[in-house]
Every structure is written in C-alpha cells, then in structure tokens.
C-alpha cells in the first residue's frame, strides 16, 4: 500500500492520539488521573431510550462479555392502566438485538436500561469473604479477578441481578463502568454509542459535569431505594412499576 502525503497527514494525528492513550496507561502511572478527584455514577434518561440495544452490543464488545451474560441490559415494560403492580417485562437476549414490535392493548410501554449501580454501600462488596470486590476511591465497584474465589456470594447479594460468574474465568464479573476508558478521559462504551443520549456518564466530583444542572432541574430516582445501597445510577422519568 502506497502512502501518499495526504494519507500521511491523516495518519499522523491518529497515531499521535493513539500513542497518547498508550502512554496514559494505568491510572496510577498516569499523572492525568487522580483517584481522589472523581466520583463516578451514571444518569439514565428513560424517556430518551429507544431500546436499540447498541449499549448492550457495545458493552459486550468492549468488555468481552460472554454470550448469555450481561453487564448491561435493556428491559421493555408494559404497564396496563389498572395493573401498575404487575407490569409485563421482557428482555429477550438482554435486548442485545433490540426488541420486536409490540402493540399490546392499553397502558404504557417503555424501555429501562440496567447496569451495575456502583452502590456506595454495596451489598456485594460487603459479603465478599476475601476482598476480591471493592469500591474504588473514585466510586466504582470492581472485581479483582485474580483474587476472586468464585464463591458466588456477591451474585446472591446484589439486589439488581447485575453480577454473574464468567464461565471462562470462573470468577465474578460485572460492569466496571468501563474503568479502563473513564480513567483515560473517555466515556463508557455504552454511553459512547447511545444514539439518543439516554445514558450519560457522570463525575459527581467534577463541578463542571452537566449532571449537576440536570439533578437540580429534574426529579430523579434510583432502583429499589428501600434497599438503601447508595446506588449511583440515577434514573430520570422512571415509572413506579420499575423494579
């Protein structure tokens, strides 16, 4: 392949940017990223979600998630007018390939994306017998896969069903909030590809983050607030039937 001058001009900045990411490396070796300066969460704007499944596919590709397991997934709710306590919910293949059309009766239909809530008082890290899962100083719940026993106690303790055992590594696995991306200044894979902005990564310690304006002007909710887990994934426009 011949390299023309025009092509080289295109290549050089790309290479420079790529090299920047290579150099950035791990957060500890990167002077740009200081653990204590961040406190990560996410905003989910339910009225914006179109259930396209891009986030589920992107997550699986970015994080090598095995088939049949989900670090993030989408649920479709159908709530009949008179049955708010008994919604009909489905999530075929986690919503990875989107949802087939549904035109069922009265009531309302909507999508709810789910992922790890990166709880401050996380029940999963509380029960880990060895300290193989933990909340980082910047507020992300991670798994140390070289230390995890695979006892599955954390999977039982998560009220949201966000954890699973990876059949290849036999260790617990979950959403890392794309920790390898956010520590390099990128957004998560799911937020990157979300076409409508229904998912927004939020750095709660950054005063310039748009999350603060959003929280001031909207009424947001977390999943299962009665579990008192200190969830940091905030849902805007969430119906009372969501569980």
């Amino acid at each position, binding site marked *: 392949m011949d390299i023309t001058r025009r092509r080289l001009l295109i290549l050089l900045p790309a290479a420079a940017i790529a090299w920047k990411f290579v150099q950035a490396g791990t957060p500890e070796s990167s002077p740009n990223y200081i653990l204590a300066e961040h406190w990560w969460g996410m905003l989910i704007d339910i009225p914006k979600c179109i259930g396209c499944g891009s986030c589920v596919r992107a997550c699986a590709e970015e994080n090598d998630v095995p088939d*049949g*397991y*989900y670090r993030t*997934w989408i*649920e479709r709710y159908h709530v009949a007018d008179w049955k708010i306590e008994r*919604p*009909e*919910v*489905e*999530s075929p*293949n*986690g919503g990875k390939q989107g949802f087939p059309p549904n035109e069922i009766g009265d009531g309302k239909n909507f999508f709810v994306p*789910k992922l790890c809530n990166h709880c401050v008082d996380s*029940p999963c890290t*509380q*029960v*880990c*017998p*060895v*300290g*193989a899962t933990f909340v980082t100083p910047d507020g992300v719940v991670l798994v140390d896969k070289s*230390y*995890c*026993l*695979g*006892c*599955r*106690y954390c*999977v*039982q*303790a*998560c*009220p*949201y*069903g*966000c*954890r*699973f*055992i990876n059949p290849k*590594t*036999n*260790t617990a696995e979950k959403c890392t909030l794309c920790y390898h991306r956010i520590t390099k200044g990128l957004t998560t894979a799911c937020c990157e590809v979300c076409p409508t902005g229904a998912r927004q990564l939020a750095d709660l310690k950054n005063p310039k983050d748009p999350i603060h304006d959003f929280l001031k002007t909207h009424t947001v909710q977390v999943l299962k607030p009665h*579990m008192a887990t200190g969830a940091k994934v905030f849902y805007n426009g969430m119906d009372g039937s969501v*569980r």
Partner: protein
Amino acid sequence: MNIPVEGFMYPNEVELQWSILIVLYPFITGLVAGAFILASLERVFRVEAVKPTYRLALLTALSFLLVAPLPLQLHLGHPERSLEMYLTPHRSSAMAMFGFVYLWYLMAVLLLEIWLDFRLDIVIKSQTTTRVTRLIYRALTLGSDNISERSLHIDERLGYFITVIGIPSAFLLHGYVGFIFGSIKANPWWSSPLMPIVFIFSAMVSGIAAVMLLYMVTTRLRGRDIDIRCLDKIAQYLFYIFMIDFSLEMLDLLQRVYEADESFRSLDFMVHTRLWTSQVIIQILIGTVTPITLLGLTQILKLTEAARKRIYALAGCLTVIGIFAMRWNVVIGGQLFSKSFLGYTTYKMAFATREGLLTAIALLILPFIILSVLVKLLPPWPDAGPVPAPGAIEPRNQLTPVLRG
C-alpha cells in the same frame, strides 16, 4: 444453557448460583452442631441416661465436621484460592467469619475435647499395640504418657470447661450458617432475623436424630442390646426440640403471610407450585408433622419396647429427611424466583459433574467412612471388649469397661 423460565427474570438470574452442594453444607454442619449438643447434655447437664451415646456423638460430630468444608471447596470457581479466606478475611463478610468459627470449633472445641476424653485410651493403646498403630497412638499422646490420677482429673475439669464453651460455639457454628443466608437483604426468602435461630434448632433436631439412629444401628451391628432408657431420653429431647423448631418455623411463616410485603405474592406462588412437593409435602408433612406426631405418641401412650424402637427409628429417618428438605428449600428455593418478583427459573441438577448428584451422594457417604475409621481408632463404646460369639446370650456390660476420668 436452556433453562425453562416462567415470567421475567433479570437475565443474569436465570442460572442458579448455588447447587445441591450448598444444600449439603448447612445440612452437614447442622448434624455436627446437633451431635455436639447431644454430647454436651451428658457432660454439662448431667443427663446420665444418654451416656452411652456421649463418645459416639463426639466422633460423629468430628467426622461430619471434617467433611463440612468439602462441598464448599468443590463448589468454588477457584478452589486453589480458598486459603485467602484465612489470609485476608473480610470482616464484614459472614462467609469469611464462618471460616474462623469453623476453625475455632474444630481445633479449640471438638478435637480438644475428644483428645482429653480419649487420652487415657490413647496412652494405654500406645503401650499395648504394635507397629504402625502404635506409632499413630504414640503421636496422638504428644509424647506424654502420664495417666496419673491427678492428670486425668485435670483433663476431666478442662474437658468440662471446654464443653461449656463448646455449647455456645456449636450454636455459633450453626447460627452463623443461618446468618450467611439470613443477612442477605436482597433475597426476601432468606432475609430474616429468625433464620439463625431456626437453623440452630433444626440443627439440633437433625443431629440428635442422626446420633440416635447411629446408636441404634451400631449397637445392632455389634450384636449388643440397645439401652432403651437412653433411647427414650434421646427421643424425648428430640420431641421437645422439634416442637420448638416447628413453632419457630411456623412463626416465621405466619409473620410472612400476615405482613405480606412486596415479595409475598411471588413467594406464595412459588411455594404453591415449584416448592409444593419439597416444602409442603416432604418438609412439613412427612418430615416434621409426622415425626412429631410419632414421637408425641411415644410420650403419651404406653407402648412396648419393640414398638418404641421401631417408632424411634422411623421418626428419626423422617426427621433427617425433613431437615434435608428444609435445607434444600432454603438454598434452592431462595434462587428460584426473580428479585424483580416477576418470574421463576428452574434448578436442573446435574448428575456426574463436579456439582452433581453423584458428588453429593459421595459427600454424604464420606462422613460414615471417616466415622468407621475413627471408631476403629478410638472405640467409643462404653461396653468395649471382645464381641461375644454369635448366638451367645449376652448379659449386658460385663466385660472390662474402659476407665473414664
């Protein structure tokens, strides 16, 4: 992976996390705790009638305790990392703390008590046996063959002290197993402050029933007569404790039904469908109500010795089955429903895999193999001595009773 699902499960919930091996684990620890508490009846509470089972109960507890961690170990995704539980235990984890409770119970209570109790036998055997067995007994004496009256008296007092500590330890051991489940707030089937208490009482029930059965079987195998006074007493205790256990379980049930919180509808449906056989039929009707009724009859009616023995044997078997079903319903039942309360999954038990039925059966047989070795090594029989020739009519306990400190 084709697991039948009814309604909606969160996608990661479809696969069950804890298999039949985790059912075995509370079942086996329960037998340990129960057997020990039966043993301590004689020692601390001076219930002389149950004396024939004292040493057998201790050895039973030990053989089951040695097997208790195996189902956990086999179930781990990385068994080779299990030592981390002791190296970097997480203080807020019930499971990590259980490791220490287990170790305390094994090393500081059970082994110590057995050693002190059998020390006289060990020292005598180290002097009377030969070759390999002699070496084993010599090692067990720790190089001290002092069996002076004063030293045995010290052992006796220390043993008493350890048993006194042992009772709360046994409660702790099995209460902790209950806490492992009862402290999971995400799971309404488990989350209950009554869980540890129900576990303790059901443990006592299963342990006492198991030792009672073992006593009957071993005595028959040795061609001796069953001490019916002892058996009556054990059955009486079994009856009382079973009543408490059943009341507690019903209290838990009543509370759940009456409170009817957000999970109730989902759990109620589960009990009426997927758990109907194992919970209502096997656990409650066959495994609890029937043995309680049978044992109650022996308390009220004046039955013949032979009839009582048969009833005790039947009630004992049903009890052990009932308690096993209870562990099954707690562990497996707690994973069949979705935490969204909108659906149910299915447990498909494998057969010849690492966590399959075959492994479970092997793990249930293993304690009996260990027990048979222990019984050879340290005969627990109060009437130890040469077995009489078959057919000989045997007056009881006439041969060299082993000295006890």
